[in-house]
């Protein structure tokens, strides 16, 4: 008799659990959309941005308080299970991962479709504090899990590279109102190189893989042949809406390099060597947007189903003919725009160098040009591994060569600790209109232990990009509304004192010989028996 009530309870409990899940698992609770944006650039190249968004309606991130107990079952249709598991295992609220190869040329290409274009890998996440494991433990687990998922060496973004730069990285989605605070963790690995082994697991996260829909254009042979390419993963939570996962791939290809006619004509065939043969059956929307040139004559085939704001749109999900290959042609040969007459695409021009011939000290120099006709305030963020130490008191700024006070404010500087903590330098710069600000600071370079060196020690160490974020309307509060789009500087190489790695054994032998020689001499002196020898000729005297 006692079994009946418990059995009933189980049924009720499982029913309740089931009905909670039903919201997440019903196919209407998940939505997948894909978009391809193609943008001819003014230097003749073509930028393509693939973005795949999956929405999990009504879902919330896992609270860290619940980490000790078993998680709910996860039932997904189009949401990537492998990523969902990692997010729940480590209770991650917001996650941004980007892996890029090449240097994004802001001057010619403008802002990218996806902001994270730092060379190498960059990972940042917002995680709630509380529960049985600390944020740092979960951050370590997250790095390891992501490096396993994407076959990348993200696991080496350890505490020696992890910072918390709150000024430049604000949550892009919402943060749940949990009892514990949310903490930011950010790390970058400029030497990581994205390649086809990272793309394969990336494609597996897409519901249609690379077999149908827009994703079928993702042909690794062409993607990794491009002048610039990179992929990114974004996980956001929108309150009252749900969890959004955005996967995107960007590339900048150069049609001029492949064409013999000096024309910058492009088509899917020429860019990707593929065409779209099938629609992705689970995509709720599937669009291709082509940015139309405004000044020159061109032809676009087939013609877009709609066009507005200078953008031609193709909707792949409507019945009828599938625009499997889109081609844009120009009647005349491409003339490379010379001179500085062209309109600036980004407000800032950046240049960062590390000078100084010594292996112990150096000099960090930045030139920041404000191209706007108004004063601009920007957040300046510099994160460096502990190899480089800034002397913040030597920080000086000049405007067009003249000393100027009051340019730098809100400085926060966390000095590095050897073998444990990186440098974080954040400040707000006020850039006068139409001017060039030069910043400079002395740095010291670490002297590494023999075992600290990388396998390719002579190459030097990659230093991460500096990040500049323009502030809108001179506002003082730092949040998602006041921050503009991030701009990354190129990465740098630093040359540290490097030993000759064939030497250690010779050094051991040599030192040992000297030691043994000294020991032997002292020992002999102490124990030698001195005898007066009377020579015969002395006797004769």
């Amino acid at each position, binding site marked *: 008799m006692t079994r009946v009530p418990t059995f009933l309870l189980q049924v009720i409990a499982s029913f309740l659990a089931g009905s909670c899940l039903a919201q997440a698992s019903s196919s209407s609770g998940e939505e997948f959309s894909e978009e391809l944006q193609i943008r001819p650039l003014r230097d003749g190249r073509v930028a393509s941005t693939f973005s795949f968004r999956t929405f999990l309606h009504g879902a919330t991130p896992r609270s860290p308080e619940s980490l000790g107990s078993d998680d709910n079952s996860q039932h997904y249709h189009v949401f990537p299970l492998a990523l969902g598991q*990692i997010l729940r295992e480590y209770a991650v609220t917001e996650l941004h991962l980007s892996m890029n190869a090449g240097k994004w040329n802001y001057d010619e290409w403008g802002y990218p479709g996806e902001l994270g274009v730092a060379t190498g890998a960059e990972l940042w996440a917002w995680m709630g504090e509380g529960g049985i494991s600390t944020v740092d433990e979960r951050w370590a687990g997250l790095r390891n899990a992501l490096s396993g998922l994407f076959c990348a060496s993200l696991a080496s973004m350890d505490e020696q590279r992890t910072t918390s730069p709150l000024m430049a990285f604000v949550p892009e989605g919402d943060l749940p109102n949990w009892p514990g605070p949310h903490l930011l963790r950010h790390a970058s690995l400029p030497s990581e190189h994205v390649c086809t082994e990272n793309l394969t697991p990336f494609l597996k996260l897409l519901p249609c893989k690379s077999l149908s829909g827009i994703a079928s254009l993702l042909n690794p042979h062409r993607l990794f042949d491009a002048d610039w390419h990179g992929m990114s993963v974004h996980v956001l939570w929108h309150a009252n809406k749900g969890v959004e996962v955005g996967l995107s791939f960007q590339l900048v290809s150069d049609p001029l390099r492949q064409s013999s006619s000096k024309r910058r004509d492009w088509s899917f065939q020429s860019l990707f060597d593929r065409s779209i043969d099938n629609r992705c059956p689970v995509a709720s929307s599937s669009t291709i947007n082509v940015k139309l040139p405004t000044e020159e004559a061109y032809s676009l085939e087939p013609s877009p189903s709609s066009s507005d704001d200078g953008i031609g749109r193709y909707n792949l999900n409507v019945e009828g003919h599938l625009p499997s290959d889109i081609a844009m042609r120009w009647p005349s040969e491409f003339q490379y725009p010379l001179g500085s007459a062209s309109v600036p695409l980004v407000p800032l021009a950046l240049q960062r160098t590390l000078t100084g011939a010594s292996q112990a000290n150096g000099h960090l120099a930045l030139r920041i040009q404000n191209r706007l006709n108004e004063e601009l305030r920007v957040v300046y963020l510099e994160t460096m591994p502990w190899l480089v130490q800034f002397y913040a008191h030597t920080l000086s700024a000049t405007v067009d060569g003249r000393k100027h006070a009051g340019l730098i404010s809100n400085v926060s500087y966390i000095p590095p600790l050897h073998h444990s903590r990186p440098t974080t330098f954040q400040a707000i710069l006020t850039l006068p209109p139409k001017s060039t600000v030069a910043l400079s600071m002395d740095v010291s370079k670490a002297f590494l232990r023999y075992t600290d060196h990388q396998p390719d020690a002579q190459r030097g160490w990659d230093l991460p990009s500096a990040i500049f974020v323009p502030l809108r309307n001179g506002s003082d509060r730092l949040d998602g509304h006041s921050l503009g789009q991030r701009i990354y500087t190129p990465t740098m190489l630093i040359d540290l004192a490097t030993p000759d790695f064939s030497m250690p054994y010779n050094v051991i032998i040599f030192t040992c010989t000297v*030691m043994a020689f000294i020991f*032997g001499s002292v020992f002999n002196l102490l124990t030698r028996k001195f005898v007066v020898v009377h020579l015969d000729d002395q006797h004769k005297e």
Partner: protein
Amino acid sequence: MPLHEPSTIFFQFDNVRRTIIASYWIIIILALPLWWKTTSIERLSLPSSRVRNQASKELRLPVHIQLPGPYLDTTKRSQDQLAQTLSRQGVDVVFTGGHVEGSNPTYILKHGTNGLVLSDRELEYDFSDESKLSTILSELLCPPQQGHLVAPYSPRFRLSFTLLNEDSTSGNYVRSWDVSSGIRRYITPLLDQLSLLHNFTIESQVQYHAPLAFKPRPSRLSSEDLSVFVNSAEWSLSSSASNDPVLHFVGFIPSQPLEMPESFLLPQWGGIVVHDPPSLSVDDVFPIFARQLLSLLGVFPLPAGVKYTDDVPISRWQLEALLRQRTLENTHSSQDTLRSIVTLVDQIEGMPVGWNVKDDILDALNALDKVYASSSASLRETAKQSTNAIALASRAFFNPDMLALLYFPAEHKYAVYAPLFASAVIPVIAAAVRELLAWRRQRQRRQQT
């Protein structure tokens, strides 16, 4: 300047010089143990004799069967036959006429003519025909081993349900399935009963492109085709979030009808159900998944002809037979593991053994002692201790600290030591020998004079 006779200077006295040489040697001899201690690896002594002793034991689990009084004596032949069969598998059968006190299960046989009816721990059997008694009982109490089919024991399993569409662009595809209702109705009741042995986590996904690794031929698929049916390169089934073993249950929707068995089991991996589109009802697929799950976890099917009518899906007989089997298996493999650790540590001299390894081994031995102590009293306690023992034993076996210096060879050490020590020690030895000879000559001379 007058020339001193050197032997009158104090440090040229024979005694002083000999003291100097002796003090070098004393320091060298005193430093040797310190050098030995700082360069040797920590190798705690393991309780080898206890492990060998434990490993030579064999666990026996008792089973009590209560027969109706009149038949206790008439079925002696079947009783002996059954006892013989089960004793080979580590189970001792005791037949009684009445109830036996204790928490160990007593199975009750009743006389009945309705055929074989199973309920709770009771079985109705028609004693007018004794011939099948021992076969039925041995199949119920100790079912034949299914060998490599059953997944190895693990305290946690992940059940991954995947709906795979071979090619969703071909039109033949299933967009979604009501997986939570399928799990609720067919899987959860089983998991509740099996929670004695394992914890389960469940996940599910749907894939819209899952190409096969081979080209299906128009003829019926052969068993070779089935062995490469799972295309691990293209189907992203595995997940990396935890180390628990995964049992996969795959509902496969082919783009064209395939001539092949509707469902099949891949040993220790999972089960596959091939379902033709367009409609997919969880009531078609999940009962098969449930059957496959039971086979993979080692729950044997009831012997033919046995009727079972209770409302819980797994009968007590099956559950307890599984417990017995897993207990025997776990005890045996933890004994094996412990013995392997001891042998391994004996064989490889450079292998460090730290406190955590030693503690785990001692705890595993204690758990095994408890297994034996409780084996005649409570089956559940025995099962619990045996899972404990195997967890501890394998944790000790896979302890990463044991690999620390395995790849730092002794030659490397000598290559560093030799240039310093060899050249420094040679003068010390030479001085000692020279002094010894001088002392002997001196003594001889003194004797002569």
